[in-house]
């Protein structure tokens, strides 16, 4: 039972960092670049995508035994299109200003590759609950990275923070950041940063797990390793 719970919630956590849609899987790049001229736009776009992703993942996972392999792509697209049309209609009614800004890209959620990729690689193979969790995780990771990108571009490009004007940036703002060129640039550099941080972290975690594993299976080896490390620490200490 414990293992089941772990399996259910694992997609939620891995979707945010480890399988981050924007920086690791590099999916859904079009809205990523297009709407992140401001942090709030990124946030709303991410939330809209998350909603569609969770709903379509749920439906597709429920229908996974009914949909024949051969016509699965049109079937997935139809499910996704239904939910993105709902989002489009709701947004037009309740958030007309935002709809003006994003316009085309709300309709284009339907062709966001994240949705089809998750349908194909996850929810068509897994039961309901993990699929919903996967949708939520990937969606939140996407939202987070969009907001982050929007934050950077808005701060340097328009000199504001979530729509609030930042005083000292007014003379320093560089319009290139909210132009397409800046979008590509910031995205590329953020990806480097992500690789740097997450790559290092993963290496550390891996090493930690390995050491734990060695300690469990072979106490003698672990002891040797510890002695070796102590010796090294001593060496470095001596050098200082």
């Amino acid at each position, binding site marked *: 039972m414990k293992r089941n719970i772990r399996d259910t919630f694992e997609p939620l956590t891995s979707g945010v960092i480890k399988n981050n849609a924007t920086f690791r899987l590099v999916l859904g790049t*079009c*809205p990523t670049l297009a709407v992140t001229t401001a942090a709030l736009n990124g946030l709303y776009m991410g939330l809209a995508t998350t909603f569609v992703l969770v709903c379509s993942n749920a439906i597709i996972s429920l229908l996974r035994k009914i949909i024949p392999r051969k016509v699965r792509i049109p079937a997935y697209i139809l499910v996704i299109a239904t939910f993105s049309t709902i989002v489009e209609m709701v947004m037009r009614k309740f958030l007309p200003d935002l709809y003006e800004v994003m316009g085309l890209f709300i309709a284009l959620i339907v*062709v966001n*590759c994240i949705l089809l990729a998750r349908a194909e690689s996850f929810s068509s193979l897994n039961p309901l609950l993990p699929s919903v969790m996967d949708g939520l995780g990937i969606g939140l990771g996407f939202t987070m990275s969009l907001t982050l990108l929007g934050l950077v571009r808005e701060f340097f490009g328009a000199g504001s923070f979530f729509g609030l004007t930042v005083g000292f940036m007014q003379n320093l703002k560089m319009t290139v950041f909210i132009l397409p060129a*800046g979008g590509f*640039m910031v995205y590329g550099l953020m*990806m480097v940063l992500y*690789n740097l941080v997450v790559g290092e972290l993963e290496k550390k975690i891996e090493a930690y797990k390995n050491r734990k594993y060695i300690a469990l299976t072979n106490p003698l080896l672990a002891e040797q390793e510890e002695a070796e490390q102590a010796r090294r620490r001593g060496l470095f200490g001596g050098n200082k």
Partner: protein
Amino acid sequence: MPYVMLLIINAVFVNNFVLSRFLGICPFLGVSRKTDTALGMGFAVIFVMGVASVITYALNLALVAAGIEYLRTIAFILVIACLIQLVEIFVKKFSPSLYSALGVYLPLITTNCAVLGVAIMNVTELATTNVLYSFINGVASGVGFTIAILILAGIREKMEVADIPERFKGFPITLTAASLIAMAFAAFSGLTF
């Protein structure tokens, strides 16, 4: 005639689909490793966009007549998905080498937002009442996509042998290159008629 020229220059350079509208970035980054695959992808997109523009134009008339414009997204994407299935069968039959080179990206034109984007833009932004303009806009947008992806593929072929910092390898350096291309294309936005 001047309007047609304007339409073409606008779609190919000024509002280039990839570099200024951010549509079709996935294949732009994914299939730009080699120039010949990029060219094949470009032609497939030109074809699909041209045909999709005409079909969706007619479809939109039908939707408006029936008063169900809100179904536009669903109807368009279904038509485009069918069209791409057709192209896939065609390419598989007549050019197996291109088919294997394009790989997964051929069916993925379905999720190439540029195709749906041009179809929706034709009926919303352009709002043309002439099916010919719709078609020209579609083809010109495809040409713009092809030019952009070809330039990037050329650069990436050169970058294969370049000495790139470890963390920049793969997507980051490609994005940086795309950023510089976009900067160059931004100059076209000064073109006013």
